[in-house]
């Protein structure tokens, strides 16, 4: 299916210098207002038919960006267009052309069954009543929920709920789809199925913007990826291009127990070290150190970790995750 044309031509999704500030307040009697800049001058352009990934840690501004694109938030400044329609001036035109799928197990009418959840939205999207039944069957089939249509959503597992979110977003067959962390909290098999559906939609010519903080997800399905950190895009390219940015690096993983903060600081200051990420596991810590190619780190690391129980030290090839960690920690 060819990508849909639109009046403006060019990009299907266009964001120019988007800024979004939230105002919040603290205190009970003496209110103190605080402005939080969630998005700080973000620009991106998604051509029709592309599956574009917005990759970033929690709080980076991914959801804010997608909510502006879905007309649920007004930008503080900047221009945002979907299929040539401005999200501020023409929200209704934008809403007709988009599908919005978000992650998590809320956002559905728990007391209704799956079909009634979809019927309601079919009416909201003005799908002809005579076409509704067939369309609902099609999307239920697509997301693998056939046979469960008449069950109340309150009894659905998280994965099933996520698939129903997906069905609802696809119901009116929109040319542009926004997926906000669609696999969050879904088990690996369910997440793989969701990714398969997203890939099929991309192959069918839909323009898709997907946010995720799973590197492998972006790597496996997105044609182009932008890494967002602290409200700004810090890198953009194909997954391969992003990986190549860290190809000339050495990655050392150290699994250890109770590494003090000051030792972590010393590791960061070691000559040749580009970045250090610490993942706390149940008892242990996993240190992932990226260093310049050829840097002989192991001996110096073990010296710094003297007195700390070290489980293993290993060198490995850099991955997209390393590129991502490097980008968001240096941003």
């Amino acid at each position, binding site marked *: 299916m060819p990508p849909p044309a639109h009046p403006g031509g060019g990009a299907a999704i266009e964001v120019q210098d988007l800024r979004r500030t939230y105002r919040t307040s603290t205190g009970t009697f003496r209110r103190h207002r605080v402005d939080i800049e969630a998005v700080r001058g973000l620009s991106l352009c998604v051509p029709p038919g592309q599956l574009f990934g917005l990759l970033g840690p929690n709080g980076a501004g991914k959801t804010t960006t997608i909510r502006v694109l879905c007309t649920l938030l007004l930008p503080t400044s900047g221009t945002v267009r979907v299929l040539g329609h401005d999200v501020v001036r023409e929200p209704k035109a934008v809403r*007709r052309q988009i599908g919005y799928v978000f992650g998590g197990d*809320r956002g559905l009418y728990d007391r209704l069954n799956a079909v009634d959840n979809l019927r309601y939205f079919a*009416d909201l999207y003005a799908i002809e009543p005579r076409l509704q039944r067939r369309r609902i069957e099609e999307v239920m089939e697509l997301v693998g929920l056939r046979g469960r249509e008449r069950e109340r959503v309150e009894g659905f597992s998280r994965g099933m709920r996520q698939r129903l979110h997906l069905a609802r977003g696809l119901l009116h067959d929109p040319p542009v789809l926004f997926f906000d962390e669609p696999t969050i909290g879904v088990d690996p098999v369910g997440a793989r199925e969701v990714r398969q559906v997203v890939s099929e939609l991309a192959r069918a010519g839909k323009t898709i913007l997907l946010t995720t903080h799973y590197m492998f997800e972006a790597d496996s399905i997105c044609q182009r990826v932008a890494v967002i950190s602290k409200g700004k895009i810090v890198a953009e390219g194909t997954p391969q291009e992003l990986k190549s940015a860290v190809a000339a690096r050495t990655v050392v993983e150290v699994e250890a127990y109770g590494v003090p903060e000051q030792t972590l600081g010393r590791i960061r200051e070691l000559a040749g070290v580009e970045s250090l990420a610490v993942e706390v596991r149940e008892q242990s810590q996993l240190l992932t150190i990226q260093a310049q190619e050829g840097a002989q780190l192991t001996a110096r690391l073990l010296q710094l970790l003297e007195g700390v129980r070290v489980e293993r030290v290993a060198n490995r090839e850099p991955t997209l995750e390393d590129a991502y960690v490097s980008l968001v920690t240096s941003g």
Partner: protein
Amino acid sequence: MSQLELGLPRRTHHFLRVFFVGGLISYRALFYWITPWMYVPTMLAAPLFQILFFVYLGRSAGVGSMAFFVVGNSIQICSMSGIYGMTMAIANERFFQTLSPLLASPANRVALFLGRGLPVLVSGVQTTVFGFLASALILGFRPPANSLPGLCLTVVVTAASCTGFGMALGSFGLRTRDVFLISNIAYFAMLLICGVEVPLQRLPGVLQGLAQVLPLTHGIAAGRLLAGGGPLSRALPDIGLELLVGAFWATAAFLLFLLFEHEGRRSGAFDRL
């Protein structure tokens, strides 16, 4: 014809679908007390005890007639559906976090919003009719037979007016998460202000003035007049005023809904629990 090129008849058809079918689906989805084991105790049993309580209180204190309390309370109990039903119809979207997909849809806001009132109105009428029937059976309340059509009209108009008021309160559900607090205060304040238990002329002037713009007041006045054997022609001005009050609140409610929708897009307050 594509979805973007909808002609007027088709637009009207979609409007009516969202209004009637959508309104009913959303009522089933969001009205907490819809199951029989919640509906019967909350919408029928509790209001019945309210009627009995005030009738016996009036009797033992030697104030007011039985008809005064039966008509006042039987009409007032329709506000439970109007106020709480409409609050749930909007505020529970926040609870289920369905506001985002709802407001990201291109659906006509008038149909989306006002359609939710119809099942609430029907439920309110049902509660009041039950109140009158139960009072007839238990207390021997017998309004003149020729007053029944007028009473029916009064009940429908008052339930509609309470629904309009409930819509206005429910709209605050887009703005604040503690909207049931506002509904609780409004419900009990109306019990005092609208002449349900205390004749209006016994209230301070400020409250009497406030009562004129609140639902129930004129409906209850019309109901008492009709139940006392008064002709429909004398009750019509009050019924008309009740209708006007309801239309005022429904309009205010829709404007508040649009305002808070815009405000929610500006502040990002949707789906904040």
